[in-house]
């Protein structure tokens, strides 16, 4: 009776440090999550702005960027993530990870609808998670990104936005436009990328599985398949601040265990597995006896197990990671990537420099897909070969690359698409249009068509007049492979198709003939009729 009273009082006490910690977590993770929503769905300007702020503090982009194209902010972000983990444990998973927050939101919603899962302590799936981590890292360092692409929580969250939320938003917006038309209100319709079915299926499968697991078992994904979680788990083995469960004060009420999403508290042995704790602080608030404390490691209670084997494992992992970093060199890294790359890769966006570099740097977060104003960037499935599963490509069947746009390079977090100036983009030959005169209607039917020439932004298509019929020819030195002509071509199959350059080239600048001097003045004395 007395115990129950204490418990109920403990739940209602406000202003308790633990409650404040939870509020802090909710506020920060909420802000970060809204930031991610706006990053992916907020439109071009907001995306470019937020892309400079949020991704540097995401583990995978920060890691890849720091390795491939070191930039101050990304290195700082990586150091920050490692530092806070070494100090506070895996708070990253509860404060900064958008997928973590998404799981928390869904769990809260599930609770509101009456499902009140009581989590329970579970054994750590060490073999599974460290194998996944080791494989991901090994693959990453040999130039294969598909494991990282599939499992990285940031990239996966990106795909949830690009594959589901953006199409949904655009479709509803366009539906709204149709409904407003009878009222004589006319708005500009929006575009969205077409997502290949396998990509959609993979994203849906992962999303449903993760959300089901999180509602039912808590952060199981984070402690089994998530490579970021496993990596930070390794670090938090040695974190300075740790949660400790005092055996003396514990009343074995198991309340902490039932609120622990990570399933890492075992009240029976009074142990907390910090490598799995996601730092949500729920247990601190739940414990009526104040038996759980968050404090400096050297004051930790004796009950926390200390195993020489585990320490060896930790140091071993660091040694392996260090060695890999040390031997990290383009040529070594690319071995597997080159072997497994597709022999017929698609066109890659301007700024990606070459297919190899792109497919070994992109984690398929699809931020470029949501930001691309013409939706020419669409996710691929196996176009890059097993190396670059799900990575975006230039899809010229549905759209074209806008001559006046370089947004993809401005938002790409991993540097797979580097930021190039608009002037450079206009001369970057990502592919080359080739004309098939055997099926082009002008050559076959001797009728005027000229659709390709109308839309070519670089004067790469020139017309020769023979008996008042205008025959197209390609000046390939001006072609930048934007795909406008391919989109405009009315024949099936298209008579003009962009062929990818595995290594991007530089196009010649078209110099327009100077307008004649008198062109600004009226040339005619009178009407010609």
């Amino acid at each position, binding site marked *: 009776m007395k115990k129950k009273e204490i418990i109920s009082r403990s739940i209602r006490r406000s202003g308790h440090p633990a409650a404040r910690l939870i509020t802090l977590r909710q506020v920060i993770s909420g802000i970060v999550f809204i930031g991610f929503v706006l990053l992916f769905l907020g439109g071009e300007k907001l995306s470019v702005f937020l892309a400079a702020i949020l991704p540097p503090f995401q583990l995978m982009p920060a890691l890849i960027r720091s390795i491939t194209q070191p930039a101050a902010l990304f290195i700082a972000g990586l150091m920050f993530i490692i530092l806070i983990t070494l100090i506070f444990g895996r708070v990253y998973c509860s404060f900064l990870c958008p997928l973590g927050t998404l799981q928390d939101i869904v769990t809260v919603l599930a609770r509101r609808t009456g499902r009140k899962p009581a989590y329970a302590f579970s054994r750590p799936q060490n073999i599974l998670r460290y194998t996944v981590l080791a494989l991901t890292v090994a693959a990453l360092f040999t130039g294969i990104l598909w494991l990282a692409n599939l499992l990285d929580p940031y990239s996966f969250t990106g795909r949830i936005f690009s594959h589901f939320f953006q199409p949904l938003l655009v479709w509803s917006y366009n539906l709204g436009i149709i409904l407003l038309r009878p009222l004589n209100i006319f708005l500009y319709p929006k575009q969205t990328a077409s997502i290949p079915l396998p990509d959609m299926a993979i994203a849906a499968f992962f999303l449903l599985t993760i959300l089901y697991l999180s509602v039912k078992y808590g952060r199981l994904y984070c402690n089994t398949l998530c490579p970021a979680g496993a990596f930070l788990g390794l670090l938090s083995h040695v974190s300075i601040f740790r949660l400790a469960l005092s055996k003396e004060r514990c009343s074995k009420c198991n309340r902490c265990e039932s609120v622990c999403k990570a399933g890492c508290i075992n009240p029976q042995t009074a142990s907390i597995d910090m490598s799995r704790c996601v730092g949500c602080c729920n247990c601190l608030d739940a414990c009526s006896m104040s038996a759980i404390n968050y404090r400096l490691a050297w004051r930790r209670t004796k009950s926390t197990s200390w195993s020489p084997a585990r320490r060896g494992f930790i140091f071993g992992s660091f040694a392996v990671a260090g060695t890999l970093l040390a031997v990290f060199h383009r040529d070594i890294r690319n071995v597997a990537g080159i072997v497994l790359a597709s022999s017929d890769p698609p066109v890659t966006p301007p700024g990606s420099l070459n297919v190899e570099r792109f497919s070994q740097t992109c984690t398929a977060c699809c931020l470029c897909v949501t930001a691309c104003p013409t939706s020419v960037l669409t996710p691929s499935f196996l176009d890059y070969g097993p190396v670059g599963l799900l990575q975006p490509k230039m899809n010229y069947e549905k759209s074209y690359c806008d001559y006046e746009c370089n947004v993809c390079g401005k938002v790409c977090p991993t540097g797979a698409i580097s930021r190039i100036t608009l002037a450079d983009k206009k001369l970057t030959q990502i592919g080359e249009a080739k004309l098939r005169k055997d099926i082009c209607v002008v050559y076959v039917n001797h*009728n005027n068509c000229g659709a390709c020439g109308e839309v070519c932004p670089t004067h790469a298509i020139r017309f020769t007049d023979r008996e*008042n019929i205008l025959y197209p020819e390609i000046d390939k030195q001006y072609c930048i492979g934007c795909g406008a002509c391919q989109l*405009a071509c009315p*024949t099936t199959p298209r008579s003009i198709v962009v062929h990818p350059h595995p290594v991007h080239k530089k196009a010649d600048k078209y110099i*327009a003939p100077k*307008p004649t001097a008198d062109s600004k003045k*009226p*040339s005619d004395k009178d*009407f010609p*009729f």
Partner: protein
Amino acid sequence: MTTSDKFSRREVLSKGLTLGLMAGGILILGKPDFLIARDRPSAIPDLVAVRNGEPDVMFKKAVELMGGMNLFVRKGQTVAVKPNIGFPRVPEVGATTNPLLVKSIVESCYAAGAKRVYVFDNVVTATSGNTRNCYRLSGIEQAAKAAHGIVVPMDDFSYRKVTIPGGKTLKTVEVHKLILDSDVFINVPVLKHHSSTHLSIAMKNLMGIVKNRMEYHLTGLDQCIADFCLYRKPDLNVVDAYRVLMSNGPAGPSNPQYANVQMKKTLLMSKDIVAVDAAAAKIFGKEPEDIGYIQIAHRQKTGNMNLKELKIVTFTM
């Protein structure tokens, strides 16, 4: 009051009866304008050409020479104004219709009593050409809105399929509902060079009201452009030849500095779409017979390209 001014009862009765019968008869015939604003075909010029003025001033003069906007727009009617907004270009490039002209047309439609005036075009998408870019850069959105025109962006779901009577190549076509449903259709093309058809003028501008324009390209541009006019001709064509793009059309360079434009400062107006195209071709410096679709449309009796046979009123400001 003198006696001569007085009406006898008989006179009043008979005159009143006659007037009443006349009014009734006119009402029954449904042509009250028979007496009031009678169309005198001989009085309306086939083509009006004005030069050496600003676009809006030239338009007002041309309308005046034509016989007034009331000839084309009546009270309570809806009007569809179709300029060329096909490309994301500033007005200085000469690839799009002059915004000042569009504004002036919208204003004069409302002045003639129009209920609603819509302004729209189907943009050529593959040239950084989302509708928003084209409408804004061309200055037409702002200009039309300033005159209370209703600016309608293009989409894929506002078209209806129609059959073209006597179409040789183009048999059916999906036309924008606004054209089909509006009472008056005013075509406001810009005269410019065109890489596929030599010139883009009034008939070519009508490709912007259909959805399956790629069918034109596929089956032969010139014939299809001419065929469409068998279905629907605009009620009035106003050709903007103020700033004429002489090469690299239809898009022209994005930087107006490199645009090869000539200040022709001319405006053409006609109900005859073939005649107006023929006159514009001459202004550009080409012969109408050399432009495929003009020749075909003339042959198909859509209009007359022989300018010598037409009543042309010219005016130099």
